[in-house]
Each structure stands twice: as C-alpha cells, then as structure tokens.
C-alpha cells in the first residue's frame, strides 16, 4: 500500500492509499461526525452526517466521507458553512425520529427542534448497524429491513431469532451495543405481550412496539 498526500482543512496529510476520507481524517485527529459508521462493519453511507466537500473551485462537490476513497492530491474540507448547514438540517430531520441525539452534536451544528416537521418518534434512525452486525459479522440474519421509503423499518425475524439469538449471547444481545439510539435495549426491558398473542412473522424493532426480543425467544422456548 503506497502513501498518498491529501489536504484536509488546509492541513497536508500523508495517508495510505485505499483509505476513506473518514479514516484518513480520524487518523489525523480531525473530527467528522457519524451515526451509521462503525469500525467493525463495512461503510454504509446512510446517515450522511459525514458529508464533506472535495475538490476546488467549480469542481467542488459534496461526498460521503465514509465511502469516498482518497487519492493523491485530494483536497477535502470538513467544516465549511455549507457542510455545517447540511449537518444541521440532517440533525433537525433526525430529531423527529430520535429526541435524544447527543447534545454535543446538536450544539455544535446549532440544530434545534423544528416546529414545521412532523414527529415520527420511533427511536430508530435506520442506521442499519444492528442489521449489518447481525448479518455481516454473525451471519445470523435475525434482524432485517422491511418496507420501502418512509415506511422502512427494522424488524426481527422470530424463526431466525430462535435459532441464533441464544448462541449469540442469551442474556444480552451483542447487537444492542451497536444501536446508537438504545432502542433495541429499551425493547429488551419492555412490557409483556398479551396472553395468546400469536407469534408474528416479523416484528418491528421500535419504541412503540410492545414485544421484545426476549419475549419472542421465551415464546419459542429458548429462554
């Protein structure tokens, strides 16, 4: 792997070819906010909080730093007015799904609750960390996405859960630690289902739901 020279926020940095902008920046101690990125998992590019501007003059454009690979001579700016403004809007949008976004992020970008937006407080920002961990690292596919567009959600497939969750870590699912909003763990201690309730094919993982992973496991006789 050869070294390449890149400029981030005016600073000349040597980095390894093939790295993403995010990796190179973090190695150099430059902060770029992320919500859907995790070092253990492949980059996914869904939260778009990590957007940066690359290039100069007319060729300047906005890219997701977690996915864009650096090359010799690349010029990156991570905190322009435009980028910070976009981050503010993205955080504003997410606040209507998750009202517990770390204050440090909200304050840094000046994001405030927007009265003109509609709330959809599911506490799930669809970052896909749990799904990707379960699928890519554990190969279990207990969690998955269903639905498209604005009704997309993370669901748990009980049959898969019965098969894999007990071997993963029966008392505390590893996927919980990946969830940035804590929605999966809050599920974990949720209320009991009504008697005689049927086992669903797939169950949404979100705050409004009253069945949790543990209960599903109980009902299929694994806990």
């Amino acid at each position: 792997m050869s070294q390449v020279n890149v400029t981030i926020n005016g600073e000349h940095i040597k980095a390894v070819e093939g790295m993403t902008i995010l990796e190179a920046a973090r190695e150099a101690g430059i902060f770029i906010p992320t919500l859907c990125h995790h070092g253990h998992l492949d980059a996914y590019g869904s939260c778009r909080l990590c957007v940066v501007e690359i290039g100069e003059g007319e060729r300047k454009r906005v890219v997701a730093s977690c996915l864009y690979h650096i090359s010799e001579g690349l010029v990156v700016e991570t905190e322009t007015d435009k980028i910070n403004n976009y981050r503010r809007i993205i955080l504003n949008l997410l606040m209507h799904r998750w009202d517990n976004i770390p204050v440090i992020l909200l304050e840094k970008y000046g994001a405030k609750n927007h009265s003109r937006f509609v709330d959809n407080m599911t506490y799930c920002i669809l970052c896909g960390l749990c799904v990707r961990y379960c699928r890519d690292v554990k190969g279990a596919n207990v969690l998955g996405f269903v639905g498209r567009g604005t009704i997309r959600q993370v669901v748990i497939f009980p049959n898969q859960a019965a098969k894999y969750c007990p071997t993963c870590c029966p008392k505390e699912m590893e996927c919980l630690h990946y969830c940035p909003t804590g929605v999966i763990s809050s599920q974990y201690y949720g209320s009991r289902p009504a008697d005689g309730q049927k086992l669903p094919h797939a169950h949404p993982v979100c705050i409004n739901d009253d069945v949790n992973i543990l209960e599903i496991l109980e009902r299929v006789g694994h806990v």
Partner: protein
Amino acid sequence: MTRLTSISALEALRKEIISRRDPARLKVSVCSGTGCRAYDCDKVIDRLKSGISHHGLSEKVEVVTTGCHGFCELGPVMAIYPEGTSYFKIKPEDVEDIINDTLSQGKLVERLLYVDPEGQVQAKERDIPFYKYQNRVVFGNNHYIDPEHIEDYLALDGYCALAACLGGMTPEEVLETVKKANLRGRGGGGFPAGRKWETTRNAPGDVKYVIVNADEGDPGAYMDRSILEGNPHSVLEGMLIGAYAIGAHKGFIYIRQEYPLAVENLNRAIGQMRALGLLGENILGSGFDFEIAVHRGAGAFVSGESSALMSSIEGKVGEPRPKYIRTSISGVHGCPSDLNNVETWANVPIIFNKGVDWFTSIGTEGSKGTKIFSLVGKVNNTGLVEVPMGMTLHDIIFKIGGGIRDGKKFKAVQTGGPSGGVIPEDMLDLPVDFDALTLVGSMMGSGGMIVMDEDTCMVDVARYFLEFLADESCGKCVPCREGITQMLHILKMLCAGKGKPEDIDVLQEVAAMVKECSLCALGQSAPNPVLSSLKYFRAEYEAHVNDKCCPAHVCKELISYHIDPAKCKGCGKCLRNCPVNAISGSKKEPHVIDLDKCTKCDTCFMVCPPKFSAVTKLSGSETLPAV
C-alpha cells in the same frame, strides 16, 4: 428455422423473405400495443381477419398486428399501406365497411378519418400533424413489424448492422463509431454511451456484462414499453453490437414485471434469435458468443437506478449503493457492467445502418438523433412522439400535441417524470436537448412529458410527485427518506391552508440538502419538482401561505363552492345531483349552497350546464361578482 452459420446465410435468408413478399399486396397494420388493446383492438383484428378471408381477399390483403403506433389518444389505430391511409377509433362494427369500401374498392371510410383542428380531413398518415412533424427513426418501424415474426424485422434490414459489425469491423471500430455518433443515454442522464462502453471495455476483468434497463417507472411514461412490445429485436440487436464492442458474453434485460406483453414479446424474440443462431455460441460463424437472461423487476421505482438494478439482478434487495466507483467498472457481481436504456440500445443498429454522418445530422450540437417522449396530460393528442433533438417544447405540445384540451390555457409542462421539473409558458421556446433542460432545473429524463393547463395547482403537483417519491424511495439514506417525508408534510400543510410564512424557506433549505447529500440519483433529483415549481411559480406558493388561496382552485381545503345568483336559472340540476343535499332553492329561482353541508365533491360544478356556468369556485379573498 435453421441455424444460420454465416453472414451470407443471413443475407440469403433476408433475400428469400423479401422475395416471398408481394409489394402490391395491401398491408393493413393494426396497432396491438397495450393502449389499443385497452380499446378492444383484439376484436377489430379478429373481425378483420375473418372478414378478409370471408370476402376472399386474403391474396390481396395482409393483416399485420403491430406494436404501438403512438397515437394512443385515438385508438384503436389502423394504417393501410402502401398508401398510408389511417383510420382511428375503430370499433368492431366498422370493420365491415373498411373491408367493403377501402380494401375491396379503394374508397375511404370518411367517418374514421382524422379531422385536424382546422376541420380538414386528413386521410394519409403523413399528412396528419401528429405524425407529420415527427421524425420516427427508432419508432417508425413499429408500424410495419409484427413483433411475433422475426421475418418482419429481417425484411427491414434487421440484423444488418450486427452482420456488418461481426463481419467487417473490429470491436474498437464499433466502439469508435458509437463514440463518433455521440449517442447519449436516453434513460435520463444523457451520459455518452460510447464512453460508457469504453470504460467497461477497458475495465480490468475477464467477465463483463451488458444490461438493458427496461425498468421504466415514471408516471405516464411508456416509451420503452412500446419499443419492447413493438420492436424487441431492435433492442436485442443493439445489445449484441454493444456486447461485441465491449467484449461481453452475457447480457441481462431488467424489465418490469408490470409489462406482461413486453416480457412475452421479448422472450419470444430471444427464442427466435436462438433458433436462428443469432444467440449462443459462434454467432453467424464469427466466433462471438453471447447469451441473454431476462430478469423481471418486482415493482420498485428505485430499481431503475443503476446500482439498485444491479443489486436486484444479483438477487439482493434493489437498493442503491454508493457509486464513487462506477458500475461500468464494478457492477453485477463486481464485474464491469454496461447499463443502457432500451431506447439507447434501439438507436445502436440505426447508427450502423444509416451511418454516423446521417445520425449526427439530426439534433443539436450536444444532443444527436431523436428522442421519444410520452406526451400526456391536458394535451389534445396524447401519445408517443419521436422528435429530433432540438425541437422546441412549443412545437411538441402545440404542433404535434394539438394544443391544450377544451381550449384551456397552457400553464406548465413537466419533463423527466418525478425527478424532473416544471417548465413555465415563457420558456416554451426551449429546445429539447439534454443540456438545455438541465439548465432550467428540469431534465430530459427517460422522456415523460406531462402537460398541465390553467386548472393545475403547482403546489399540488409538487405534493403529488413527492408523494410518489416518498413511496418509492428505498429509505436507506437520511436526506432522501426524512427529507422527502418532511417536505411532503409541509406541502400537505400548504395545500390544507395551514402554511406558515417560513415554510417556503424551510422547503428550499431542505431541498438543497437533499439534492446534494442523498446517496443516489433518486434522492438527488427528488427535490426538483419542488425547486422548479418554487422557482417559476413562487407566487402560487405565497398565495397558499399568505392568502390561504389556491389560485387554480384545486386544493379542496382552500376553496368553497358558490352559485352565482346572476347566472343561476334554477334548473335544479345541481340540487338533484348533490349527494349531501347541500343545495336548496325553488324552481326557476337562484339556488344556494349550504357551505356547512358541502363536501366539495365538485358534482354541482360538473353538472351545471355550460350555458349557465353558475357554479363558481372561490378561494382566499375572492368574492362573487356583484349583481
């Protein structure tokens, strides 16, 4: 059919097919595209066939069931060649007259002829304004080809271009020809096809793919469908030429499941090719091998996006992935994959048959050749039109489209489907050209063209398109998913009269972010309907916010129905038809609508006789004219 093992065998077959045809024989071409099928053209065709044999005309007349002719407004459509006599809106009972008069005696059936807006009867296809101003390079052969018979395609120089490429040109020469023709992608982006081919050809890797994008999903657009239904071999031939130039031996056709006739015709065409040795190993003895797999989409608009389409072909969820490395370098299964739209592929054989110079003589500096549009909405002549690039929107809508319905006023035209933008009246002189349309905030798109009249509310239009996109976004990235949700919410508020002054700025702010930060082209172009309508019709947004007024009288929450006492003659029609009994009044006295009961169903407005037009919609501070 025997397998052809050489180019000369193909030419011999072509000669034999042509020699079997009697040029004096009348050719009755009846459209059997999806549009005309909906008008029961099947019955017309059945009657025609049985009538012809009953009258003993089979020697003299041949019936060809073809794909779409384009003039869908007036279906079922028929054209009788060589004269080109055209009949429209044919009912099964008209067939007897067509046989007795036209086919037996050469007389016209007047009542089925086209009458132009000036009242002139036009018997010949070429004199009808709808056809006259078009340049049907890609689409024209639809009139002569029965998509079930490969012979029809062969008779019209079918697979000539392929033979020329395989027989006398190196892949590099083929590539150069397409580059020189400056064929740009007809799917919307307008990226030069030759350059895309070159990238795929030069990309490292032994296995390469060529793909036809037939996942046409824009509301109201059906160009690709009609090409595949009517002339599938033109697309397949283009694909083979592309594969030869690129060095690919496997191709995919990604087609919507919702196009059953296109799938059927395509699969049949592929079967015919295989039987003739135009597919498989050692095609026409050239040593070139190629196979095609048809992949049917499961109804996701986003799967028309290149990376989502390729995920779908791999059997995964049709979800876009980042394209900082292009699909022409790393596509299906990580192999270099060249994806072009149906219409782009259909243009390829034409370039070789007619020559680069001929092709580049059509169109503008930057956009060569023709483009097919589906002209729909409030226009008189709904249908598919193929025009040279550079024709003005005005000519398309007024010369070919015959102007706006019911004598209403033109307001705007939406090009490029939900990802495109609206173009106002003062820009009608704009030439249709990839770059010109992008410059004004719209795009060529795959060719949807929705014409809107004065009764269209632009805020409502933006809301409609965002509603479509909210359903069709894959939901992966935040800007597209959350941004569209909130923009749609605000637009709904505006339409419901709950807009606030800051809403327009919020819309603009969110739209700008969605445009730049979204993962794929769907998200990046999703704000276009909002941004372009805001740019050209801002006053209408402001009226919704500040005056709670919908100037076009569309947004139900902002309008109320009234009866003008000066015009109402008390005929009682509205009173009888009102479903909620909100109208009262005695005979021959002006009626009154009880606004508390009124559900704004529009019935009274529709039934009020035009000679009175007493029912009026009012919005905002509008009042009835003083008596």
